């Protein structure tokens, strides 16, 4: 089968496309082509040898879903795509809306519903966790700078000021909170999330839900090295039944259909875990999952094909990923081809 994957932006804020493809290539059962879909001619995944069989540039969903669909239809006429795996948060809403039209032209997807996407939104997660007895940092949603004065009534500084889609700053006082509010609202809009700051270590889980409430697999990891953008640059699989159990609960309650990443923080004072975020796609460190014995991207392919997948019940503890900045050398002709023809 021919599988198209997006998110080849393996930069210092890496998309999950490259590790998803590497995971699929580990599965010997997959025959057919891997087609890389990139939004930018300089997405590094385009330049990795033996990663994709063919690459195409596609328009951003923000330029209109019709444009995106038309481009994918054209690509499909050439490549006969069986399955499309979008891997970026920002494109998911668009692909969820397009999934019926994609199915009509023979392209399967395995995506969460719009309702599921909304439940785990940064502005909704608090309510979901409270309803389901999952520990979550206290938060308030603010839409004006004046509302920041409420902070001391809710919790004490420092606090975390988060954008509705991306980015977060730690603010130690009202001045810093205002500065973060202005930056984030200008960039990402409203509301702004003001969250209780919990000091502790970060833990993550990559998981896959089958859409009926079953967790097909889940692998827990602790970040060993974190970049200044907050990205894990190395990590190790760990044996922590608590966060796996919370992840299973989230999948059961939401009937999650797709890959996901759950981000936790362990309070250094109380040793309690708090769920910070749910990302509605595989993380950029997903290649650690097959390395630890759970090839979750391949399991997603089987689910998308309607096959029965036996849930994984264990994974190898102590597997480590270390990300590497590695310069790829190419020729101007390659850049020319992907820029002018939109394919390579």
């Amino acid at each position: 089968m021919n599988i198209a994957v997006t998110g080849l932006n393996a930069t210092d804020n890496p998309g999950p496309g490259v590790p998803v493809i590497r995971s699929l290539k580990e599965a010997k059962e997959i025959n057919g082509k891997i087609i890389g879909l990139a939004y930018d001619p300089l997405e590094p995944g385009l330049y990795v040898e033996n990663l994709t069989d063919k690459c195409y540039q596609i328009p951003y969903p923000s330029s209109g879903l019709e444009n995106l669909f038309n481009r994918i239809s054209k690509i499909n006429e050439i490549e006969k795509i069986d399955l499309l795996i979008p891997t970026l948060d920002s494109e998911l809403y668009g692909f969820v809306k397009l999934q019926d039209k994609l199915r009509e032209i023979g392209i399967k997807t395995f995506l969460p519903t719009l309702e599921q996407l909304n439940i785990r939104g940064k502005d909704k997660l608090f309510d979901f966790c409270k309803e389901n007895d999952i520990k979550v940092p206290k938060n308030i949603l603010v839409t004006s700078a004046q509302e920041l004065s409420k902070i001391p009534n809710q919790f004490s500084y420092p606090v975390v000021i988060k954008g509705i889609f991306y980015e977060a700053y730690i603010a130690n006082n009202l001045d810093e909170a205002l500065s973060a509010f202005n930056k984030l609202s200008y960039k990402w809009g409203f509301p702004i999330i003001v969250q209780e700051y919990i000091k502790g270590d970060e833990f993550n889980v990559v998981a896959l839900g089958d859409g009926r409430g079953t967790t097909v697999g889940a692998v827990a990891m602790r970040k060993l090295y974190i970049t200044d953008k907050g990205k894990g640059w190395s990590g190790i699989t760990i044996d922590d039944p608590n966060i796996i159990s919370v992840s299973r609960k989230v999948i059961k309650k939401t009937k999650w259909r797709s890959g996901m990443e759950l981000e936790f923080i362990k309070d250094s004072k109380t040793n309690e875990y708090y769920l910070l975020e749910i990302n509605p796609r595989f993380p950029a460190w997903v290649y650690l999952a097959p390395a630890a014995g759970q090839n979750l991207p391949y399991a997603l392919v089987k689910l998308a094909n309607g096959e029965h997948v036996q849930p994984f019940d264990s994974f190898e503890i102590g597997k480590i990923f270390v990300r590497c900045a590695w310069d790829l050398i190419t020729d101007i002709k390659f850049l020319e081809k992907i820029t002018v023809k939109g394919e390579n």
Partner: protein
Amino acid sequence: MLNISIPKNLAVSDSGFLFLTSTGETFTLNEIGHFIFKQFQQNGTLEDVKKKVVQEYDVDPASLEKDLDDFIGQLKAYNLVETK
């Protein structure tokens, strides 16, 4: 009598490299620390451990008492041993 044991979630390699499987934390023991830790792995009492250290190393009992207290305190702080 104080008994010291190793928690189940701690993997100990032959080289004295410790890995807490529940948190992903890793630690390295020096030669003497590793020797002492191996005695803990045999579930001996603290008195047994002291005797073995005195047999193996040139150390006076008073210094050993103090250093061993400090060492156990550090191990406990990092959840690397359990005492009862």
